């Protein structure tokens, strides 16, 4: 793919080298400069958090609970909270998301229904995260009476990440070649057998990659869990689904803005921020690497 790209590109490069146009080179370098701004800013923020947080990270920091009004000790229950929140969210959202994707890619026919479903997905993807938080508060916390709890927060996050899971799963399902289906159907398999035995297994790596990237998105979210799950402090790790939890993003926010020890907890804030970044970007990187390997490995 890239090799082909190179070959066709060559003649234009030669034309370009012949006459150096001042206006052209000015604008191209301007675009280069503006275009790398995002990457540079990411680099600056990353190195800042790394510089301030790396000497705080230690085994004790990630394995011990906070002590002395959170100015000392670790963030073990906070990490556990985020991991549980994300895990339960994924357990809830993946079956629903994948089923929806199967409907969209295998069963739906073009028409008003499909249009409505797609439209609602786009809209859902654009709804602000704080609005999901309000919804979770009104429905899961109050109407279903789950209270501020791990379960309410997970369900809120599940609804938020649903459109993403649907569209990545759908993409994975659509990438399965039509000949696979034809072969299976020709062997006498029913449509459902074909989906279960041929299409889903083939699409599974893609679906899981989408889920990993979704996990990265969910674990960094603060606004949806603010009124549905997260507490300033809980004694230890949660013992049931219906207890409030501490979570990494909320921990950063609350230590940096509320309470009487904002300056004293600064090191903990940096450490928590670094932990969150490592978690989110690590998951992200894993997903991106898996995805590009799958694309390269694809033999059909």
């Amino acid at each position: 793919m890239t090799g082909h790209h190179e070959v066709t590109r060559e003649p234009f490069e030669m034309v370009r080298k012949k006459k150096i146009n001042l206006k052209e080179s000015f604008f191209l370098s301007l675009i280069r400069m503006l275009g790398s701004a995002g990457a540079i800013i990411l680099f600056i923020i990353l190195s800042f958090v790394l510089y301030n947080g790396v000497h705080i990270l230690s085994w004790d920091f990630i394995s011990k609970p906070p002590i002395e009004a959170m100015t000392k000790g670790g963030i073990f229950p906070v990490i556990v909270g985020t991991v549980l929140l994300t895990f339960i969210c994924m357990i809830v959202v993946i079956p629903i998301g994948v089923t929806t994707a199967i409907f969209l890619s295998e069963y739906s026919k073009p028409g008003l229904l499909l249009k409505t479903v797609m439209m609602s997905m786009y809209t859902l993807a654009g709804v602000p995260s704080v609005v999901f938080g309000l919804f979770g508060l009104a429905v899961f916390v109050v109407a279903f009476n789950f209270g501020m709890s791990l379960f309410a927060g997970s369900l809120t996050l599940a609804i938020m990440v649903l459109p993403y899971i649907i569209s990545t799963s759908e993409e994975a399902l659509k990438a399965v070649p039509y000949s696979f289906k034809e072969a299976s159907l020709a062997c006498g398999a029913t449509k459902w057998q074909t989906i279960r035995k041929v299409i889903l297994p083939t699409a599974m790596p893609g679906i899981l990659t989408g889920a990993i990237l979704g996990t990265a998105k969910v674990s960094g979210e603060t606004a949806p869990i603010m009124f549905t799950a997260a507490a300033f402090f809980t004694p230890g790790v949660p013992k049931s689904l219906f207890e409030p939890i501490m979570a990494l993003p909320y921990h950063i926010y609350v230590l940096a803005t509320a309470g009487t020890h904002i300056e004293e907890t600064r090191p903990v804030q940096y450490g928590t921020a670094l932990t969150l970044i490592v978690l989110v970007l690590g998951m992200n990187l894993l997903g991106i690497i898996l995805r590009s390997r799958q694309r390269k490995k694809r033999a059909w």
Partner: protein
Amino acid sequence: MVSSVGLVSVIVLLLIGFFLFKEAFYIFYKAGAMKVLFGTAWYPTYDPPSFGMLPLIMGTVVVTFLTAVMAIPLGIATAIYVAEIAHHRVKEFLKPLIEMLASFPSVVLGFFGMVVIAPILSNWLSPILAEKLPELLRSTNIPFISTTLADFCYNKLFIASGLNISTAALMLTVRAIPVISSIAEDALTAVPRTYREASYSLGANKWETILRVVIPASVSGLSVAVILGIGTIIGETMIVLMVAGGAAVIPYWIFDPARPMPAAIAAEMAEAPYQSLHYQALFGVGVLLLIFTFILSLISDFISRKYRAVRIGEKI
């Protein structure tokens, strides 16, 4: 069975709309929709309370505008760089980097704004702009510059607090660049190769081709990118909550503090008693946010349907 599950996103969206309207209905009904929407006093905890949402709405509008001014050129430029200019090795490195920036936790961006950008603005930039610069201008003794311009700098460039809408806009720009650029890049890549080849064969150089051929051919996709970027900015909560300053007044200048709508919800929900007027007013703000983003989604969906611009959905 499968087809009923297929409707799950429709049902969820309807439920969100229903529950938000249900909780918010009473505030618009009791206090009067016009009075709530265009009232300039947001004093939810006073006695009697006042729920004029205009300061919050204007906070969002002004912050979004400031951010858009920076984020749209930077986002589009990033897309052009990645799609058209960068060597394919640089591209392979930049694309995942931008994708990672897109899922960078916004609470860390807010935290960075609080501990780095805000002190830089108030402790370092403000003395230079509001003290050193006017002094320098006054000493020049040139009519307009030494009087009007110097006074302007002295009065207007003084930054009382680093937590203001400029800092918020700066951090929101970081948040919006990857959203805009990833959609815009899709739109640029979708322009057929033959268009570029035709342009080159007529003797156009690379910049002319980008400006006159590739951008016009992908303008609908680029506008979808911009609209969805604006949607992201409007709904972004943690950054405006942490660095916008939090004052519920209409901002008139770029160094004024503000309390945009998401920040109001996030900051006040914890202290609003269940089913109180304040609680309902915050749901009212949520309804407005939902309507704003719904309109933006409708527009972008319309554009991408009509012009087959880009496949949106997995990008945000």
